[in-house]
């Protein structure tokens, strides 16, 4: 997916946008109209649009890779308690249509194997698994898994931006927030807004604009719960003949759909 430059309707100078984004500037502004500083216009800054394109290009260039996301996930409970939980997701991918996804949280551990024709879903703690046929590119399968089976894979953006066949609507607004560092790596932080979602990405400066951190804010919910993920990339993972095939452990049971419909105990 590429964001056409024409989509960036920059009528406000980038500098002004950045100025509005800095709270300190508002306080030191000279005597100005009584109205508070206006919110930044919903503008997709061309620099930010370009950053998304560079990120998409960097993701598309990866053919065999592993990305691990260590995330905190917020969930809002009754009483407006917003609690965090931890989640580690590892995607091991061989384009166009092989992947294994391991998702481990505080209370769950699931693994999904996709080899181009079958998806195997394993409940690692319960020791049961199911298989069903599905095909397509990884981006397609992630979407199909949601539509047809209600499986909501995290971080689908990494594959949608990275997949030339997928269509991503450009954000309605975006700007570069500023410089950042994770460890010794220099990054640039960007903010984007879409209906229902604000997201921020921290991209490596340099030739390969891989995301190292991403924050997704759910703006459909009043409490605005967030998903905050740090990424670790391995561009030369060890792949073997059975990386994308599930080998059942002793005691793992295949749940045949016939037996899933069992008589009541």
């Amino acid at each position: 997916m590429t964001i056409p430059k024409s989509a960036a309707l920059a009528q406000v100078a980038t500098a002004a946008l950045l100025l509005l984004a800095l709270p300190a500037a508002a306080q030191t502004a000279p005597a100005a109209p009584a109205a508070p500083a206006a919110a930044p216009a919903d503008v997709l800054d061309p620099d930010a649009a370009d950053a998304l394109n560079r990120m998409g290009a960097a993701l598309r260039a990866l053919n065999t890779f592993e990305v691990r996301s260590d995330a905190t996930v917020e969930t809002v409970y009754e009483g407006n308690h917003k609690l965090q939980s931890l989640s580690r997701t590892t995607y091991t991918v061989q384009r166009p249509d092989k992947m294994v996804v391991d998702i481990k949280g505080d209370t769950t551990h699931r693994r999904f194997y996709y080899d181009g024709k079958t998806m195997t879903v394993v409940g690692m703690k319960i020791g049961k698994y199911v298989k069903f046929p599905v095909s397509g590119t990884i981006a397609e399968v992630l979407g199909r898994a949601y539509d047809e089976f209600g499986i909501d894979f995290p971080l689908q953006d990494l594959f949608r931006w990275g997949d030339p066949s997928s269509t991503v609507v450009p954000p309605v607004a975006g700007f570069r927030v500023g410089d950042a560092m994770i460890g010794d790596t220099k990054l640039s932080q960007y903010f984007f807004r879409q209906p229902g979602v604000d997201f921020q990405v921290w991209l490596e400066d340099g030739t390969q604009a891989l995301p190292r951190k991403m924050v997704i804010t759910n703006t459909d919910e009043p409490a605005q719960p967030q998903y905050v993920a740090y990424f670790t990339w391995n561009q030369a993972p060890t792949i073997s003949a059975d990386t994308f095939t599930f080998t059942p452990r002793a005691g793992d049971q295949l749940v045949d759909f016939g037996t899933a419909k069992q008589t009541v105990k």
Partner: protein
Amino acid sequence: MRNLKIMALALGAFALAMPSMPADAQNRSGDKGSHGGGGHAKAGKPTGHAKTSANRAPAGNYAGNRGGGVSNKNAYKAGQASSNRNPGNNPNRNNVNRKGGNNVVAGNTVVVNGNGGRGYYDNGRYYDGHYDDDDNDFLEFVGKTAAITAGASVVAAVIGSSTNQKPDGCQPVNANGTSYMYCNGTYYQQSGPTSQPTYTVVAPPQ
């Protein structure tokens, strides 16, 4: 090979990065109700959560998408059967499949065994006494997938789950001397105080 009729069934989405149980951390220290007036802080049911993708694929945009797939996102609600089903006109009402090992009720719905009877099911999440056990969540997913591949249009409920909300479209049924409520394809038994009854999904009476 069974003729797969895939129904789009994103029911409260099986959200993988989410905790599958309420993080009832404060509950673990016990129910010490000594804080007075209004009780103790406790995480109840989830009311909202983070999105783990900014862009999820839109529905039905794929080559080979099976035509006629019905998006039935709201269908799987224990105790609240799909509102567009008319219980009086349900032609399969008496067509309980009694074959051994087969739990298909009403012809095209599947009632799936949950893991024990102490749980509470609501809108895509199964709450059980085991806070660190995601078996139920997985079994539920399996049940839904089973239903989908069997061509079921709706997964009615998980046996053993209960709700305080009276299901829609209930008719009283008396079988073998026991009273049940038959609501849109699912059998319930009512229990608890009449001021706050509990409706528990049970197996169809034999």
